[in-house]
């Protein structure tokens, strides 16, 4: 039997899911992060738990919210686990009443009871359970409190008592429902009351569904609506809403004691006074980013990766070389291992410390609840470019990896805004590009590493904004709206922070061992062989010959060397490959690092122009595929390749020209 997890956004759904299914998944403390279902197995059982995107009701506004309502329609959610925010009972129970109406067996989990306690709310569990007619559990999912009780319950008891919950919506609506039921019954369909209530409540998805089969229903709804307007002056959906709310208020009055008026927690209010400050809001966001980069590069990351580099290029290389000599390996094998794999894969691996430090801080920002504030602070700017503040969240996810960011755009309600967001997301500088920056800033901008990297991140955001503005002229205008829920701040828990850092970072390490390894070997092959055979001078290799054809194209940008061009070509597969390609192609003599060697090939300005180009040019293969899947259009995917290449070329050119003019 499948159990589906329903609940409002920001109620700790994903935390609960992780605790009771045993698998660890990362918790984003902002609204609407789960955009698709996730299935896990409940600990100690063989039952599946489906985690659905957070919804406020069964009436979906965005693409990700549809998934939750569909799970009910498709009978995937045979049983329901409804997570309720104990601290916001009234609005959380709205979804609960809608779910109870479906008649599915349901268990309520009161989460965040610790917050409710801090707000001095006392809930009589037994009475709540009696009033709702369902089993009620309490948890603090962030800490895992109460989860074992829930698992024990799910393990032992079949939760298959269908709920017989039903509300009386008054004579007009009830008779409309009866009339609709008889229409459907005549056509041989078993009507489901909850669907009819949703239909009358103007649930777009259900209306589409029923109108197609039963065109008569529209007239019945219209009539009921007119009667209600005449007699009460209210719209039909308002009457349904008020009936539910009256019931909920009654339940709450019966089961809860609130000893004082609720206020925003002092700590949250205090932090918000600073970070959403009228003028300082955006500068504080940039300052935080700068601090993160300062830690990632200057203060912690670079010293660590230098040590790693010395260790790899010193003892490790020597050791392997000796071992190969002892085994009597042929020169070809020695070359592929030493100049190919160790140079290429090692060159990427030395940036592991930086990546992990960056991910640690991104996790920290996410987990604390700050991102929702950034969405608010950014909304004005986003509105100007035809987007809304919510679009900033996929963009920030893009700092980690562009693929999930493209998918996170599903939380955006308007199709036009969603498309725009998908198109500009690849300009967000992902962690793979970070390894390229790390290499170059260490070589050229040792004094101002964090500042240079920050400038690239900001440039990515600025270009994304300008391009979105440009595109918004060509896309049909739609009504845009913005509501952002701001959850209270959490003091992040070190354990979950470390785990989510590790979860994000391990992908980088794994990729180095798998794809980067494979790619590096092939790049090495192309640089080792040439038309005249093997072990040719690198300038006469296949790689050099092919890349040289394209190299002149990049002369205006300041970097026409064939090695740089090869790195860009192979970088289309994955941007880390830029680093490994350079490590393979620039012959690094013993005792020198690639960053020590690069200044012979690039001027600092050309290096910066190269970084700008790497930041903006063609999204990597995985991102292009994600764009294609999410938009359902190969044309848009091809377009995103073409326009970002052009944008990268123009902007890198402008940077180079301006730079030459200034310096």
């Amino acid at each position, binding site marked *: 039997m499948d159990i589906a997890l329903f609940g409002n956004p920001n109620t700790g759904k994903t935390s609960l899911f992780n605790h009771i299914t045993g698998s660890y998944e990362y918790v984003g403390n902002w609204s609407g992060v789960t955009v698709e279902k996730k299935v896990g197995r409940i600990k100690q059982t063989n039952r599946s738990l489906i985690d659905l995107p957070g919804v406020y009701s069964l009436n979906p506004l965005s693409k990700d919210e549809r998934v939750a309502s569909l799970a009910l329609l498709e009978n995937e959610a045979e049983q329901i686990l409804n997570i309720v925010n104990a601290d916001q009972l009234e609005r959380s129970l709205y979804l609960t009443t809608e779910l109870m109406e479906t008649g599915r067996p349901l268990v309520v989990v009161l989460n965040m009871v610790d917050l409710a306690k801090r707000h001095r709310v006392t809930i009589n569990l037994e009475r709540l359970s009696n009033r709702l007619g369902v089993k009620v559990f309490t948890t603090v999912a962030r800490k895992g409190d109460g989860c074992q009780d829930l698992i024990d319950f799910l393990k032992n008891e079949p939760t298959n008592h269908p709920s017989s919950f039903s509300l009386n919506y008054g004579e007009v609506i009830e008779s409309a429902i009866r009339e609709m039921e008889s229409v459907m019954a005549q056509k041989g369909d078993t009507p489901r009351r909850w669907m009819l209530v949703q239909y009358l409540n103007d649930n777009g998805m259900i209306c589409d569904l029923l109108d197609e089969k039963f065109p008569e229903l529209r007239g019945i709804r219209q009539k009921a609506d007119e009667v209600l307007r005449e007699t009460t002056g209210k719209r039909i959906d308002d009457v349904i809403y008020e009936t539910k709310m009256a019931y909920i208020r009654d339940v709450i009055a019966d089961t809860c004691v609130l000893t004082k008026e609720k206020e925003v927690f002092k700590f949250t209010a205090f932090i918000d006074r600073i970070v*959403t400050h009228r003028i300082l809001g955006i500068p504080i966001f940039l300052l935080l980013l700068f601090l993160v980069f300062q830690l990632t590069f200057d203060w912690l990351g670079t010293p660590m990766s230098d040590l790693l580099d010395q260790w790899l290029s010193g003892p490790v290389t020597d050791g392997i070389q000796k071992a190969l000599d002892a085994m009597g390996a042929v020169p070809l094998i020695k070359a592929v291992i030493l100049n190919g794999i160790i140079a290429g894969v090692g060159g990427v691996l030395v940036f592991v410390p930086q990546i992990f430090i960056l991910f640690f801080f991104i996790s920290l920002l996410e987990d604390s609840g700050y991102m929702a504030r950034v969405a*608010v602070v950014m909304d004005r700017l986003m509105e100007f470019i035809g987007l809304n503040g919510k679009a900033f969240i996929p963009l920030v996810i893009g700092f980690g990896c562009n693929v999930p960011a493209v998918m996170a755009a599903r939380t955006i309600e308007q199709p036009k805004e969603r498309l725009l967001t998908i198109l500009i997301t690849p300009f967000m500088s992902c962690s793979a590009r970070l390894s390229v920056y790390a290499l170059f800033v260490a070589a050229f901008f040792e004094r101002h590493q964090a500042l240079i990297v920050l400038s690239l991140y900001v440039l990515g955001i600025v270009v994304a904004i300008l391009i979105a503005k440009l595109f918004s002229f060509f896309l049909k205008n739609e009504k845009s*709206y*913005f509501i952002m829920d701001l959850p209270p701040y959490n003091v992040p828990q070190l354990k979950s922070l470390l785990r989510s850092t590790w979860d994000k970072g391990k992908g980088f390490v794994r990729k180095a061992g798998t794809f980067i390894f494979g790619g590096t070997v092939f790049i090495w092959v192309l640089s080792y062989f040439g038309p005249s055979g093997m072990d040719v001078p690198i300038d006469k290799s296949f790689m050099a010959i092919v890349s040289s054809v394209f190299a002149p194209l990049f002369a205006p940008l300041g970097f026409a060397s064939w090695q740089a061009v090869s790195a860009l070509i192979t970088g289309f597969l994955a941007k880390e490959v830029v680093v490994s390609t350079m490590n393979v192609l620039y012959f690094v003599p013993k005792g020198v690092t690639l960053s020590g060697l690069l200044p012979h090939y690039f001027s600092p300005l050309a290096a910066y122009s190269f970084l700008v180009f790497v930041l903006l040019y063609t999204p990597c293969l995985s991102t292009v595929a994600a764009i294609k899947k999410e938009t359902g259009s190969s044309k848009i995917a091809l377009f995103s390749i073409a326009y970002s290449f052009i944008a990268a070329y123009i902007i890198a050119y402008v940077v180079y020209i301006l730079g030459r003019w200034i310096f």
Partner: protein
Amino acid sequence: MKLSEVKINEKLRIEDFGDMDSQMRRRLKEMGVFEGKSVKVVRYCPLGGPCLLECEGQLFGIRKKDTLCIKGELV
């Protein structure tokens, strides 16, 4: 009185959503903000940016143009 005229830290009891976009209004209702509720203005963002509101201990942000639609009485 319109919500947009309410000063920071003052509370408005909502009486009417005026001609607010129906989807926007629905979402607000689902978030527990409806006629009869009191909302406190926490902050106005600069340059006509969003307005931060509080309703029963819950913080949320909506756009300035939507605060023009909401009418009610100061409490």
